[in-house]
């Protein structure tokens, strides 16, 4: 029996890995290594904390489940690499866009960096996120 690709499952594995990776990069690079992001801002409203808590908890779970789904797809010879890559870009892009607009701006969770003019940082952050979303969507639609 020839292996059959599982495109939908490949996409979802990618989305979960993408969300988890973006959350992981945010946590390690910006919080722990650069110390740009603050653990807590006194002005953060309750909704900001709840949103952060949910995404934080979901991010870890997503990356673990996503990686195990990837292992399962490999075992079945059902992995569509194109769909996986598209999923990773979409997941990471949507998460970063949400983080950069809703969490940083709307919910005032924390800023990208403190003591500097934020315009450049905010635009870089969100444009990069939008580029990932668009690239992921295009890759998803492209015919195999």
């Amino acid at each position, binding site marked *: 029996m020839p292996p059959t690709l599982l495109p939908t499952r490949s996409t979802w594995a990618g989305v979960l890995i993408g969300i988890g990776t973006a959350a992981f990069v945010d946590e390690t690079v910006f919080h722990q290594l650069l110390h740009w992001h603050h*653990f807590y801002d006194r002005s953060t409203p309750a909704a900001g904390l709840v949103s952060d*808590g949910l995404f*934080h*908890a979901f991010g870890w*779970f997503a990356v673990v*489940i996503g990686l*195990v789904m990837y292992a399962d797809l490999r075992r079945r010879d059902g992995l569509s690499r194109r769909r996986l890559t598209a999923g990773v870009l979409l997941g990471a892009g949507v998460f970063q866009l949400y983080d950069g607009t809703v969490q940083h701006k709307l919910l005032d969770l924390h800023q990208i960096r403190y003591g500097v003019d934020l315009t450049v940082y905010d635009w870089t952050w969100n444009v990069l996120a939008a580029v990932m979303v668009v690239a992921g969507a295009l890759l998803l639609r492209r015919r195999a």
Partner: protein
Amino acid sequence: MIGMHAAHSSGSAAGLVPALAVAVAYVWAAQRLRRRGDSWSGWRTLSFVVGVLALGAVLQLPDGEFTAHMTQHLVIGMLAPLLIVLARPFTLMLRVLPPSSSRRALLRVVHSRWSGWLISLPVVAVLEAGSLWALYRTPLFASTQQHPWLHALVHLHVLLTGLLFTFAICQLDPVRRRYGLLPRAATVVLTGAAHAVLAKSLYAEPPPGTTFTPADLAAGAKLMYYGGDVVEIALAVVLALQWYRAEGRALARTQAV
């Protein structure tokens, strides 16, 4: 004045003795199974022994500081329950007990309606998250610093809710009702979020009636936040591997046809 009133050691040897006794009982039971030719993974024995000894050891910490208290909280409520549940103590007991009235009684407990209710996902989630919020956001926490008996009772409660929660999520031992991956994953994410939100709020505002230093409070809150992550990732790995094995069995069945 720094920290709480008198830094009292919570457990002394009182915590270590029962921990050692339970560990010895587990090792004895596992040895009995092996001697009669059954297999019982050494990893389970190791997990159990490390779990209960960590429990006994962490009770020896003086908990005058918030950071020390949080270390206890993480070990008693999350890490030790995980290690104990991974060792499948009920499965071991059911296998080692001869067909007898005590084995039947144990089975009745495991399969009873009330134990099924007690380890249903909504109940364990509310117990786990609700207990934490009640402890840190009411004067309860300040009271435990003044009354050793209340302090011991809260420790016991944290341990029991942690065990129930982990037991319900992992579903490794026989239970009355089985849940799929999705509701269990959702429960872990939601309680993990409640844990993270509470940790961040403690960073800014101590439990009512306490006077921890800001540095101690901040360190304790971060320990709670990231320590909670470690246990959440471990739970995610347990659930993901259960799914991976189930998929593998399904795959083997289709290939066999």
